[in-house]
């Protein structure tokens, strides 16, 4: 109902009984002092924050937090359609997305804000399911929802539900940056690419596959923490969301002013996603992931990084896929594969540094560009 967003009694009921109870009671039980995540292994995060769920319940205009020395702050909006998909829902995604943005900066996620824009007539049962997704996903990382807002708009003015989350994290491992990436760095991806994009598109377009593709939607802090605390020298980490692996690598190549060379047959891809891509003319590395991280690590640490990743449940399919600045060695390996020199006049000048070069299964190398011109609306 519109009145649920009016700021009056109904708003109070919605926030109190559905959202607040969903977030803080169903997981934590009524007597838990520290809110959802704190029953999990990361109790410390909430104690550092020195905030209890009873205090949040007072519904002050702002959450008062005790901040660590150096923080990371990020925000994201979620409009995914369908709202529920195999492997997750918009609620789980809204937590994992923001948690991952903090995690890849070496920041342990502490606090989230949670904003809803809900279309009038949206089913309460669906809202409860979404809140449950948020609650469960927050608990996995030990991140705490400390502030939020809900607006209800007239039917037809939004598509079901939109969520916005912002996150604050405590920097535990400083210095991760795309600008640290240097020639010789090894590129590692933490698992199969393209699952989320393929799961969403196949559901939305009603494309039935023999095996339904499951989104990889997951919070990556624990896995990233494992890598970073083991002393591996990591230049940068990114979660490969919109634009997929292709977009991350292109941004890195541009920032590093170095070519990045990737071997196509080393990129881990689930069979169902391969089939889906064949059917529709996509490439798995252009599809979004929501639970995969790409690492650039110093070459001497590549083996260790891979084994740490593989020993984590979210990284079991991790693989080394390429090198920064490895272009020349790859091309000379297969001289017949070098592209024809020059064009028949016109065309694109590609003699710049900062390209991503994909070596295909037949040893032929080509440019891997940012995805473009695809119709990929609202995957996150």
């Amino acid at each position, binding site marked *: 109902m519109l009145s649920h967003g009016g700021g009056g009694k109904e708003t109070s009921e919605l926030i109190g009984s559905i959202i607040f109870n969903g977030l803080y009671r169903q997981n934590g039980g009524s007597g838990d002092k520290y809110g959802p995540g704190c029953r999990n292994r990361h109790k410390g995060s909430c104690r550092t924050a020195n905030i209890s769920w009873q205090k949040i319940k007072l519904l002050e205009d702002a959450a008062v937090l005790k901040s660590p020395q150096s923080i990371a702050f990020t925000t994201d909006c979620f409009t995914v359609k369908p709202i529920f998909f195999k492997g997750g829902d918009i609620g789980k995604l809204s937590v994992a997305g923001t948690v991952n943005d903090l995690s890849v900066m070496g920041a342990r996620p502490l606090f989230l804000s949670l904003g809803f824009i809900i279309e009038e007539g949206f089913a309460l049962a669906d809202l409860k399911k979404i809140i449950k997704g948020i609650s469960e996903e927050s608990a996995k990382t030990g991140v705490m929802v400390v502030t939020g807002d809900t607006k209800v708009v007239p039917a037809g003015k939004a598509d079901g539900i939109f969520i916005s989350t912002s996150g604050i994290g405590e920097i535990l491992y400083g210095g991760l940056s795309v600008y640290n990436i240097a020639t010789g760095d090894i590129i590692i991806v933490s698992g199969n690419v393209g699952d989320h994009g393929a799961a969403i598109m196949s559901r939305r*377009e*009603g*494309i039935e596959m023999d095996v339904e593709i499951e989104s990889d939607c997951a919070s990556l802090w624990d896995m990233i923490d494992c890598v970073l605390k083991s002393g591996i020298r990591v230049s940068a980490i990114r979660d490969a969301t919109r634009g997929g692996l292709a977009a991350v690598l292109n941004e890195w190549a541009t920032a590093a002013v170095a070519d990045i060379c990737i071997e196509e047959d080393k990129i881990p891809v689930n*069979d169902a996603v*391969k*089939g889906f891509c*064949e059917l529709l*003319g996509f490439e798995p590395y252009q599809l979004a992931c929501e639970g995969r991280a790409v690492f650039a690590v110093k070459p001497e640490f590549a083996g260790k990084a891979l084994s740490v990743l593989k020993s984590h449940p979210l990284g079991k399919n991790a693989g080394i896929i390429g090198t920064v600045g490895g272009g020349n060695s790859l091309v000379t390996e297969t001289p*017949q*594969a070098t*592209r*024809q020199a020059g*064009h*028949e*006049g*016109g*065309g*694109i000048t*590609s003699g710049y540094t900062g*390209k991503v*070069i994909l070596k*295909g*299964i*037949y040893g*032929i*190398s*080509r*440019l891997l*560009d940012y995805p*473009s*011109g*695809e*119709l990929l609306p609202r995957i996150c």
Partner: protein
Amino acid sequence: MQLYSDFKMKDDISRLASIISAEVEKPVNIMEICGGHTYSIMKYGLNILLKDKINFLHGPGCPVCVMPVKRIDEAIAIADSPGVILAAYGDMMRVPGTDSSLIKERAKGNDIRMIYSPLDVIKIAEDKNNKDKKIVFFAIGFETTTPMTAALLEEVIAKRINNVFIYANHVLVPPPVNAILDSGDNLIDGFICPGHVSVITGSDIYFDIPHKYHKAAVIAGFEPYDILSGTLLMVRQINEGRPAVEIAYKRAVKEDGNKKAQDLVNKYFTVRDEFEWRGFGNIPKSGLRLRDEFKSFDAEILFKDKLKELRLKSGAGQTGKENALCKCGEILKGKSKPDGCPLFGKVCNPENPVGACMVSFEGACAAYYKYRDF
């Protein structure tokens, strides 16, 4: 058996490529007619693998690419008519017309729906909110997709739906091939003929290629192994000077095709006197229209006044013209390649396509852009 991996095996591909390279006596010019082949050749770099031996020329077999600007303008005019829902394949949405495209028209508020299968039109028609709407299906495609439009019409008639109309733009593979060969100024030694089209039509439709024009013709599938084994058969035909139609895709194509699908098409469609193709102009007997007994479903008849007005304008050269610098027309005839176009990658790219060949993923320009040199 994994279709997407078994016909891609690295060892098979290397072996086939070296056999072809060894057997080619002098460099061979092969036109692959179908956009699906162009896509695979570029995606797997088969043109590079066989560099200096095989020169792949890209033909008029991408259904989106061959639609002239005029037909896009007409679809836009239909979509702009009161009470119309236009249903179109996603690929058609961004093809530029004279002043607009379907995607821009949708942004303006016209009801244009993207569909994946013609039968999705039934769902739109059965929605109770659309009872008073005219639902027009922008039907495009070669012999492969025409049976699906015919199946839609069959379903519409069976369900007594009276507000679905077909804007028929179905075209045939052989006429533009013959037009290229009739023009004389080509270097083509042989044709890789489309696999999916041939599943429906069988192999007879390519009879003229070897028998009238004395060129090689091999029907091939779309995986790298299929394309290379087709190429090998073609090289042997050329070396031995015995042009014929051969099938390198026997797991899918029978000589007489799919009779049931052919009958379905013949029940609803008949050949037009002529149809305009991008880059070619009018080609006689190259397109299909609904048979007279089904004219009550024909959007060209329902909107004849509106289309007549447009056709007068395009006849006078006011609309329907392609960008003078765009080489789509030349590319579709195998006379130019995408990177020979002055607009390619500069003004024309997938986000901002100037010509249709940059829109569909089967378009030669889109394939060159996506899998381009570094």
